[in-house]
């Protein structure tokens, strides 16, 4: 059953998460962008701020309506709190002719993300498939995942999408699964409220402690229509029909050469993508005889990613961009039964060259 909350109740929700021992990660204005930052208070939420995004460009703007969640995809997703960008996996010391390993127990800090978008929650369920559902489970990911609470926000405020295209990828703008609480923010004239739904027991328990009236049919209908309005007016889209097959057959497309000339192999797209999961593993040793293994985010745009003795397999920008795009939109399906792209649009906004994957896919379809 849905509840209606006001702005103050959202602040109270954050406070109650904190008193439950959660580290709260939420949106905040920092370095002229609206990103997720740990240690959020209600007053940190970017009230009245929105953003404009286009390929290779991002600017914040005043919305003038006091919306708490009036922005689109953040510069980076909040995956770093579940899947940290740099982590020591273990350390080891020499022990006569052998060695002993010290595997520190995976840390299991309780994290609550507030303001998570449908695309990012969908991305999380994709990462679950990678790290939990395969033949091998990643214990560190598992520990963090089990301690994660998600207060999601349906996208209900901005009709034109700028760079995101979740509707065509089937992941949003309404959050589908994997969250604990979903909020829909509604601003109508001087009315400003949130329709809240719990998805899990923990979500219900938390909502119960927050003052809010049961939502009336009007309010639920307002929320539904705001969300579907966003879906309907989302300008950018990818034609997902037969997409994996199209991509799998696209190797010889001349389009890869064209985009390869623009691609910087800078790795930005993979770093901001909420589903990318590649890591590098580095072994090292210090001057006191302690060896460590660290695991850090890696990208298929680096040479070492495909290095085998004698050189890299994917040497050209073209080959690396192709690998990335075909994986996201094509081969991912065979690997995990889902697309690797959730349509958050980050790789488009944050590409320094302004390369737009939706445009590339369209061009490949046209040339096929």
């Amino acid at each position, binding site marked *: 059953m849905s509840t209606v909350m006001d702005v103050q109740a959202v602040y109270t929700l954050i406070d109650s998460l904190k008193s439950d021992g959660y580290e709260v990660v939420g949106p905040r204005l920092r370095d002229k962008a609206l990103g997720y930052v740990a240690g959020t208070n209600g007053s940190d939420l970017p009230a009245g701020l929105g953003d404009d995004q286009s390929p290779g460009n991002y600017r914040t703007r005043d919305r003038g309506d006091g919306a708490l969640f009036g922005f689109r995809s953040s510069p980076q997703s909040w995956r770093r709190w579940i899947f940290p960008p740099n982590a020591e996996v273990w350390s080891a010391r020499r022990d006569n002719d052998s060695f002993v*390993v010290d595997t520190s127990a995976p840390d299991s800090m309780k994290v609550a993300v507030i303001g998570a978008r449908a695309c990012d929650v969908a991305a999380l369920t994709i990462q679950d498939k990678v790290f939990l559902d395969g*033949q*091998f489970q990643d214990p560190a990911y598992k520990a963090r995942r089990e301690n994660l609470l998600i207060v999601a926000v349906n996208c209900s405020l901005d009709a034109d999408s700028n760079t995101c295209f979740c509707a065509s990828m089937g992941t949003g703008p309404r959050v589908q699964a994997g969250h604990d609480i979903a909020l829909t923010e509604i601003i109508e004239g001087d009315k400003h409220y949130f329709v809240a739904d719990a998805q899990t027991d923990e979500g219900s328990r938390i909502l119960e402690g927050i003052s809010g009236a049961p939502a009336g049919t009007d309010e639920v209908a307002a929320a539904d229509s705001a969300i579907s309005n966003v879906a309907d007016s989302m300008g950018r889209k990818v034609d997902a029909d037969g997409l994996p097959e199209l991509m799998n057959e696209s190797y010889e497309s001349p389009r890869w050469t064209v985009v390869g000339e623009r691609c910087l192999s800078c790795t930005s797209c993979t770093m901001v993508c909420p589903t990318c999961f590649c890591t590098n593993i580095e072994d090292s040793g210090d001057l006191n005889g302690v060896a460590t293994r660290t695991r850090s985010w890696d990208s298929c745009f680096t040479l070492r*990613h495909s290095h085998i*003795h004698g050189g890299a*397999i994917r040497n050209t920008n073209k080959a690396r961009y192709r*690998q990335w795009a075909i994986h996201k939109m094509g081969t*991912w399906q065979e690997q995990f039964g889902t697309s690797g792209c959730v349509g958050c649009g980050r790789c488009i906004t944050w590409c320094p060259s302004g390369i737009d994957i939706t445009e590339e896919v369209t061009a490949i379809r046209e040339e096929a």
Partner: protein
Amino acid sequence: MTIATKQNLESIVGAPRPAKILSVDRNTDDVWTLRLEGQGAFGPGQFNMLYVLGVGEVPISISGSPGKTDELLHTVRGVGGVTNAITSLKAGQSVGVRGPFGTSWPMAAAKGRDVVIVTGGIGLAPLRPAIYHIIENRADYGKVSLLYGARTPKEMLYADEFDSWRETGDIEVLTTVDAAIGAWDGDVGVVTTLIPRASADISDAVAMICGPEVMTRFTVAGLAERNQSKDNIYVSLERNMKCGTAHCGHCQLGPKFVCKDGPVFKFTDVAHWFEKREV
């Protein structure tokens, strides 16, 4: 044959287990075989991640007999940082082991049929367990031909075992080199030139191939010329590997994770990707 059971999963994903080196044998100028304490069951074609303290970890195939679980053999060619560190280890020291990982040669599917094994250089290492398996279960297989190429006679791996494979194993061993340096009166030329001479019935044999990608490409073509169905071809592939558990993403070939879907593939499963460049 998937060996990873629930009990040993933790240790495979996590830290390497130190395994004592029982002996180290030099095979060629830059190839050494380490005999380690046994690790338990494995399938021919599977590999371990071998770790040298403070230096690094790399995928190395298991090269011993699957029937002998009290010892674990790895044959390593020193080509870079980690492999050079591995090959300079001495008996009594330890090397870290995680595994076994990956798929195996189709020993069951090959039962009752002829087998043709085509390989070059260090590629014989992951096939030796298959050869041992055949010899130990010789009655299960028809004619078996091993076609092996090396750059020079000196670089031929396990040459001291060829006679016993021929005699006690009833395996046809045909060899060739790229350059006949020293006392060599055998064949000179690429390994595919041996295909027409194999006595196994290629058109119906199960083929197992391991070598550099170019060699594999030419071999597949050479076998096709002898009317071999691509359905009977198995290849072992190589990609950069950091984890072995399909999490690091480095070993992808199209939709495949070479570490878990391979390294041994049914050729037709990867043909689409394998035939293209820079994949």
